[in-house]
């Protein structure tokens, strides 16, 4: 130990015990909010130099992963600033599609462009909003446009991300009825007239589709009004 340090120790005889450090440490740690120096002092024996205690604690924690910091005159422990990267971490969580979602996806892929009502008609059960949302989130389906029909329902189709994920070069590579049967995916007899459509994901809208954002004939008539409403 150097002369200066010895001198330092002699001069600055600490006004606290190791137990005081433990008490201050536990108090700040357990507190739900940053602690005032006076709140710490209140729990220590009279005459303790709280400033010196906190300085010593601060020194002990200075190089650790956790630091004792003072903000707005109050004490708190914080993780060291250089550890921030640890505390927010992107994690990719693999999720399996639900049966409803995968069936919905399959119908969209083969029958696109389809509306929600079309999917329900094919599946024979209601399509939950969740299934569509999940497929949108996965980036596998997109809203193509609107069907020119009452209610102007949205039409859905697949995306290029869909093709990439499922290793398809083009939507036409989806197997047809013969191939599906050959792969043993159908069991038993199929009813006469049963067919699998030829899928088509071309960007161009079909004759019965209109763009998403454009108003239909109904809105055209009331153009000014409906725009005000939408706003």
């Amino acid at each position, binding site marked *: 130990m150097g002369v200066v340090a010895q001198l330092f120790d002699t001069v600055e005889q600490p006004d606290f015990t190791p137990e005081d450090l433990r008490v201050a440490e*536990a108090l700040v*740690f*357990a*507190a*739900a*909010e940053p602690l005032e120096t006076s709140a710490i002092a209140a729990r220590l024996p009279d005459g303790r130099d709280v400033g010196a205690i906190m300085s010593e604690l601060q020194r002990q924690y200075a190089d650790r992963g956790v630091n004792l910091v003072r903000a707005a005159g109050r004490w*708190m*422990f*914080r*993780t060291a600033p250089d550890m921030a990267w*640890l*505390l*927010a*971490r*992107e*994690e*990719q*969580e*693999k*999720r*399996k*599609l639900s*049966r409803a979602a*995968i*069936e919905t*996806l*399959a*119908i969209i*892929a*083969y029958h696109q462009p389809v509306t929600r009502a079309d999917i329900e008609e*094919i*599946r*024979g059960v209601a399509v939950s909003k969740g299934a569509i949302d*999940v497929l949108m*989130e*996965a980036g*596998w389906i997109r809203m193509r446009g609107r069907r020119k029909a*009452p209610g102007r329902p949205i039409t859905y189709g697949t995306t290029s991300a869909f093709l990439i*994920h*499922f*290793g*398809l070069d083009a939507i036409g590579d*989806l*197997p047809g009825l013969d191939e*599906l049967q050959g*792969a043993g*995916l*159908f*069991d038993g007899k*199929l*009813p006469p*007239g*049963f067919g*699998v459509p030829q899928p088509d994901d071309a960007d161009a809208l079909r004759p019965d589709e209109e763009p998403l954002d454009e108003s239909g*004939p*109904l809105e*055209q*008539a*009331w153009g000014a009004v409906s725009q005000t409403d939408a706003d």
Partner: protein
Amino acid sequence: MSETTVQEPEFEADRAAGEPAFKVDLDGFEGPLDLLLELARRQKVDLSRISILELANQYLGFVEAARKLRLELAADYLVMAAWLAYLKSRLLLPAPPKAETNDAAGLADALARRLRRLEEIRRAAELLLNRPRIGRDVFARGAPEGISVASTPVYVATLYDLLSAYARQSQKHARAHVRMKPREVWSLVDAREALTRLLGRSEEWTELDGWLIEYCVDPKMRRSARASSFSASLEMAREGLIELRQESAFAPIYMRAAPKSSRSEAA
């Protein structure tokens, strides 16, 4: 015990002469086994050496005293009393044939074991409850920053999943529905077409029902035709192509093509 109604919390149990009297607060007991354990504890510290016969006597005396004081005892206590009275009689019998000796002693033994087991679990419970407990003796960090894990879901499905799902549902649906005869309906498109054609002919107010029935020869189609053309007429009215009029609720609905001027205004 909630079932045990206690008018007087403390009473003096009937005791054999010469033995010290004691007070028992019935309110504090959790059933007959608990009471027996308390009685046993007063008898001896070491539960493995208590006299079951003496314990039975004490318990029965207790129940007797409670009755005298008109304390209402829960059924559990009375069942135990009956059982102990039976056990006592067996224990007091002069040495019976071999097999039966073991029976009475075995019953007494089983009771002693049950008491010891309860005692043990209570000791364990005490040890457990006296551990430094989070939120009582020891505290977690008061204000943790938390580690925010922003998890981006990555959906996985194979081509096989996709194809088998398609095959499964389409086959199921085909089987379930292919034999159903399609319902005969007059679609909205049909209705709209018919209305447009009709409007070309008529500048006058026309009764909707009138031409409808005229148009639909097949009576089976009437309901569907009425619904569809009503919807279509509403839509066309909104588009400014036609005008609708109805005198009162359920009265016939009249329609006519909108005058050319109002049509251009709407556009």
